[in-house]
């Protein structure tokens, strides 16, 4: 059925356009390259991202104490980052916390006091049990968009798409030098090979019930970024 349908749809489209399809790809018009964010220096991008992210109801804090002075952050977080993360989770009553392999690696040898960390795992039913019952999940954010206050995440090996979706609190570890300026910028950085990429612009929300804004309808009601 699908072959005949395909043929007919193409025949209809061809007839509508009054010409046979060409073998070469068309040239689309310019995408309006007006930049919404004209600066590119990291401290300003970080400031803008922080403002937008907080406006949306996101939370953010620095994993390192002396952040402004450093031109680029160290690749492996220090003890202080792990301590700061542990204290955030404890303050929020998170006892069981799922953690992605790469995030675990970023924390190095450090454990998080007072928190039980559970690695994302196979098989899938165990993974699902974990993600649907844990208090929070920690994943890496691959980047961020300053203009809109968005986190950029890609699916990948040892990662789970549901890790940043099912738990009520999502903690994203974000390296400051991965923040890009605006949507146009972020689109040019979309990986050509990733099976699923997603941008997260604040906590899940709905206003379907009588126009009243409520957070955490299906996705996390709280999203927190620890900057590295």
């Amino acid at each position, binding site marked *: *059925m*699908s072959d005949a*349908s*395909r043929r*007919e*749809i*193409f*025949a*209809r*489209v*061809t*007839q*509508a*356009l009054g010409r046979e*399809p060409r073998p*070469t790809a*068309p040239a689309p*018009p*310019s*995408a*309006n390259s*007006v930049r919404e964010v004209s600066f590119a220096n990291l401290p300003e991008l970080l400031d803008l991202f922080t403002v*937008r992210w907080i406006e949306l109801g996101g939370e953010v804090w620095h994993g390192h104490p002396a952040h402004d002075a450093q031109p680029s952050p160290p690749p492996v977080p220090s003890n202080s980052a792990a301590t700061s993360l542990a204290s955030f989770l404890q303050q929020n009553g998170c006892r069981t916390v799922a953690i992605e392999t790469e995030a675990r690696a970023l924390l190095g040898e450090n454990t998080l006091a007072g928190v039980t960390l559970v690695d994302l*795992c*196979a098989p899938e039913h165990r993974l*699902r049990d974990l993600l*649907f019952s844990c208090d929070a999940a920690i994943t890496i954010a691959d980047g961020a968009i300053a203009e*809109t206050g*968005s986190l950029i995440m890609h*699916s*990948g*090996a*040892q*990662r*789970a*798409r*549901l890790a940043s*979706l*099912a738990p009520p609190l999502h903690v994203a570890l974000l390296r400051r030098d991965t923040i890009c300026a605006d*949507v*146009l910028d972020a*689109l040019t950085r*979309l990986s*050509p090979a*990733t*099976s*699923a*990429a*997603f*941008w997260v*612009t604040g906590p*899940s929300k709905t206003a*379907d*019930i*009588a*126009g*009243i804004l*409520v957070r*955490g*309808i299906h996705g996390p009601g709280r999203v927190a970024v620890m900057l590295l």
Partner: protein
Amino acid sequence: MRAKVDQYAEQMAETVQESVHSASALKVMQRIERLEGDLHDPEGARDAAAAIKQNVLDHLAEYLHIFEQRLIAAGARVHWARDAAEARQTVIDICKATGVRSIIKSKSMLSEEIELNQALEHAGYEVVETDLGEYIVQIDGDRPSHIVTPVIHKSKAEISRLFERMGLGPYTESAEELTMQARRHLREKFRAADCGITGVNFAVAESGRVVICTNEGNGRYTASAPPVHIALMGIEKLIPNDQSLAPFLKLLARSATGQRLTVYTQFIRAPRATGELDGPREMHVVIVDNGRSAILADPECHEVLRCIRCGACLNVCPVYRQTSGHGYFSVYGGPIGAVLSPLLEAGRRQPAPASCFAHPGTPSARPSTPVPDAPRGTPVPHPTDLIAPEFAELPKASSLCAACADVCPVRIPLPEMLLTLRARAVRHGFAKLSGAPDFRPFAAVATRPSAWRATVAATRLPGARIATKFPIASLRAWRRSRDLPPFPKTGFRQWWRKREKQK
């Protein structure tokens, strides 16, 4: 016989009308704030979006072909459906082949257009709408009243009573509590479903990505949690490449609700890759025509296919605000619906071109017969004359204020199309409404200066205004929802002569 939309508006509860009106007004304000306050060049973005969409339509065959190739190379399956029946059957076939029993759905106008849910339920599948508004519509057996906010017409109390009846939780006046009741209930569905069906906001040809923009998170669950993902899209959803998404992502959420971006923007290319811990094993994209190719052939109306379903035209339309989407008695309401509904319905009845049956080696090619569900004796319209009788009165549900054209992110000339469709309806003799008075008496007076002057003088007689209320039935009907301005004490010519004398 008065127009259905007028009849509907008349019987609408005032509270519903108020909430539709105020919610629309709020979104209009938010849109302006976000577009003008935020973007450096909102008009430029609209120009780019319009030009890109037009380019897509002008090269639709090429873009469809490229998109299909990319998807297949990435491991997704592509299916083609000529009409609603075929689209429904395709989805059912996929479910049968993969042993699916329970299905979750996220927002898809197309799935409503093809009446998918009923067909799936009839075939024995459990189908759960997971967008909160659509879920409420589903369990209440209702219909959505707005493209973006489906239950704008329901109160908290109504929703709570509904949830209580369905066993989601005790009665409560708290929107937060109600939302949590729905979250707890639907979470279990996300966890256990065998198949997820989503719509598609944009289909990027060059990169083979399906882009889905949502706020709640159910769209992500639907595309990622079950082992099978089915994405439904119309043929016109294509975008050339990743970068050309920029103006659309800038405009979509801002036009719809005043957000910069929806909370979740998904870019999906393929099913689960090796090493990934979750994600669907199978990804299916169903590409549906259902009348769109006929509209593509319509020289006066094909631009309507640029629509990105933002809902901005609904929010700003004075007629929509008085009636909500239900007043249009169609899947698509508001200004876009008034144009799309008559065109799509007529487009579905266009027979296939002879050329698609001339292919060698197609033993199953069927003879060119009219589409089965066209009523007997329905004339087959010429491509430049598409309009379905059932929806012919919708283009009249408009004051022609053109506010819709002002807000459309892809610059669809809706007012011109509304006029074009009205003319087609008249040519076919479809739209016979007594709501419009016979203008011939007016024409007779307006083309005779002495008669005109006499009529104008008559308006200054006592009782003139009252006289317009009784004598003529059609005038009475027309006046029921229109106020005449007060008749001035002096005529313009008198005033002018006086003024000239004073100089």
